[in-house]
C-alpha cells in the first residue's frame, strides 16, 4: 500500500504515468465515471481549504465514489484531544483512501505510518503539498507539451512558498530546465533548496529582483503572493509590492506563448485585467487539479 506524502515519493516515470492518465480522463471522462463505485474517500481537513478539498471531493464524485470527512478540526474529535494517529486508525475502518490537510508539518507522514489505507498529503503547514505540484506539472505538460527544455521564472515570495519549493524539486529531475528566481532580497529562495537542489545538481539558475527584465526570456511565469506580514518593516513592503504585480503593461515584453501560472488564491499580484489574456493559465491549473487527483486516487487504489 502506497501513500503520497512528498512529490519525491514518486519517480518521474510514475509522474509521467499520472499525467498520461489525467490526460486520458480529460479526453474520455465517461470511461472513468464508475471506476470508484463503492469506494469512499475521507477528506480529513484539520484546517480550512477551498480548492484542494473541493477538488478532491469533485475528483472522487466524478469517479463514481463517495466522500466522507470534515473540513475543520473543530468538527472532529481533535477538538477533544484525539491524536492524528488515532483519528486515521479509526477513519481507516470507514474509508478506502484518505486525503489529509493538517497545520503541523509531518502529520500526513505520521498518518501514513499508522493507517491501513493510502494517505494523500493535501498540505502540511509550510512543508509539502504534492498534489499542487502534480497539478502544476500537468498544467505545464498540457500548456507547453513537454516537461523538458523550459525556462521557468518563479516570482514573489520564494522563501516561504512551499509550492515553489516542491515544483523546483520536481522539475530538477527533468532535462534542460533554466530557473529564474525573481524576488526581493527579503524573500529569496532558502539555501536548502538553492544549495541542496539547484547547486548540488549543477542546474542552471539565476536570481534577480526585477520581474520586467526577466520576463522576455521566460516560457513559464509562476507567480506567488508577496505577503505584507513577511516584511520586517512596512516601508520595504510598500517599496517592493508593486514591482511584483503582473499587469497587461508588463506582459507586452513577454513571449506570445508564455504560460502564466499561480497556485491561487491570489490577492493582487496578478491584475484581473490579465485574466482574459490567452497566456493566463491559472484557472486551467485549477481544473487540472481535479483531473490529476482523479488519476492519483485511481493509482493509489490500484484501479486501472
Amino acid at each position, binding site marked *: 500500500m502506497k501513500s503520497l506524502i512528498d512529490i519525491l515519493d514518486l519517480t518521474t516515470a510514475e509522474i509521467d504515468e499520472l499525467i498520461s492518465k489525467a490526460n486520458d480522463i480529460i479526453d474520455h471522462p465517461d470511461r472513468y465515471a464508475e471506476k470508484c463505485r463503492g469506494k469512499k474517500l475521507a477528506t480529513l481537513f484539520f484546517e480550512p481549504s477551498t480548492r484542494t478539498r473541493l477538488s478532491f471531493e469533485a475528483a472522487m464524485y466524478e469517479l463514481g465514489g463517495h466522500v466522507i470527512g470534515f473540513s475543520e478540526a473543530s468538527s472532529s474529535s481533535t477538538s477533544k484531544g484525539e*491524536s*492524528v*494517529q488515532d483519528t486515521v486508525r479509526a477513519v481507516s475502518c470507514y474509508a478506502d483512501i484518505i486525503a489529509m490537510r*493538517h*497545520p*503541523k*508539518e*509531518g*502529520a500526513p*507522514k*505520521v498518518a501514513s505510518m499508522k493507517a491501513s489505507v493510502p494517505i494523500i498529503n493535501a498540505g*502540511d*503547514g*509550510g*512543508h509539502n503539498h504534492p498534489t499542487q505540484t502534480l497539478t502544476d506539472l500537468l498544467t505545464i505538460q498540457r500548456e507547453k507539451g513537454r516537461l523538458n527544455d523550459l525556462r521557468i521564472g518563479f516570482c514573489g515570495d520564494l522563501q516561504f512558498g512551499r509550492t515553489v519549493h516542491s515544483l523546483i524539486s520536481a522539475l530538477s529531475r527533468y532535462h534542460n530546465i533554466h530557473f529564474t528566481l525573481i524576488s526581493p532580497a527579503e524573500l529569496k529562495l532558502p539555501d*536548502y533548496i538553492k544549495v541542496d537542489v539547484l547547486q548540488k545538481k549543477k542546474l542552471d539558475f539565476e536570481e534577480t529582483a526585477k520581474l520586467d527584465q526577466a520576463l522576455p526570456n521566460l516560457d513559464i511565469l509562476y507567480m506567488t503572493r508577496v505577503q505584507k506580514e513577511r516584511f520586517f518593516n512596512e516601508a520595504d513592503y510598500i517599496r517592493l509590492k508593486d514591482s511584483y504585480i503582473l499587469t497587461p503593461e508588463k506582459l507586452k515584453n513577454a513571449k506570445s506563448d508564455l504560460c502564466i501560472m499561480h497556485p491561487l488564491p491570489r490577492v493582487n499580484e496578478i491584475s484581473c485585467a490579465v485574466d482574459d489574456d490567452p497566456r493566463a493559465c491559472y484557472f486551467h491549473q485549477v481544473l487540472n487539479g481535479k483531473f490529476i487527483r482523479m488519476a492519483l486516487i485511481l493509482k493509489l487504489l490500484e484501479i486501472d
Partner: protein
Amino acid sequence: MIIDAIRNGIVIDHIPASLSMKLYRILGLDDLSCSVAVLKNVASSKLGRKDIIKIDEIIDLNWDVLGYIAPDITVNIIRDGELAEKRHPQLPTQLTNVIFCENPRCITTTEQELPHIFKLTDPEQRIYRCIYCEARAKKHE
C-alpha cells in the same frame, strides 16, 4: 593520578576533548553500579587533547549514540586483562529518541508520544533530518 587497570571492561578512547561528559550522560553511565572513570584533557599525539572513559564492566553500548556523537572514537573491550576487541562506531543511518526535533511547527510538538526519528540524509556533511517535517538536526556541540 592512578586509575586501576581494568580486568573486564570497556575503554572508550580518542573522545574529542570536552565530549566525555556528554557521552557519559547520553550513554546512561551514571546509572551503573560499577566503577566508571572519566579522564578529561589527556595529552594525545593525534588529537592534542582527548577524553577517555573507562568502565569496569562489559556493558551493552548504544552504538548509534556513539556513532552520532563521536564517530572517530575507539572502543576497546578488555577481557581477562587483555585487549579482546577494538571497534570503531559507524555513522548511524537512523536515530530514535537520541536527538529531538526543535521545529515548533513539527507534528512531534503536539503528538508527544511520537518517537523522534532522524535519518541521515547526507553522510558527507553528517546531516540528519526529522522524518516527519524534514527539519535539519542542529549540530551537537
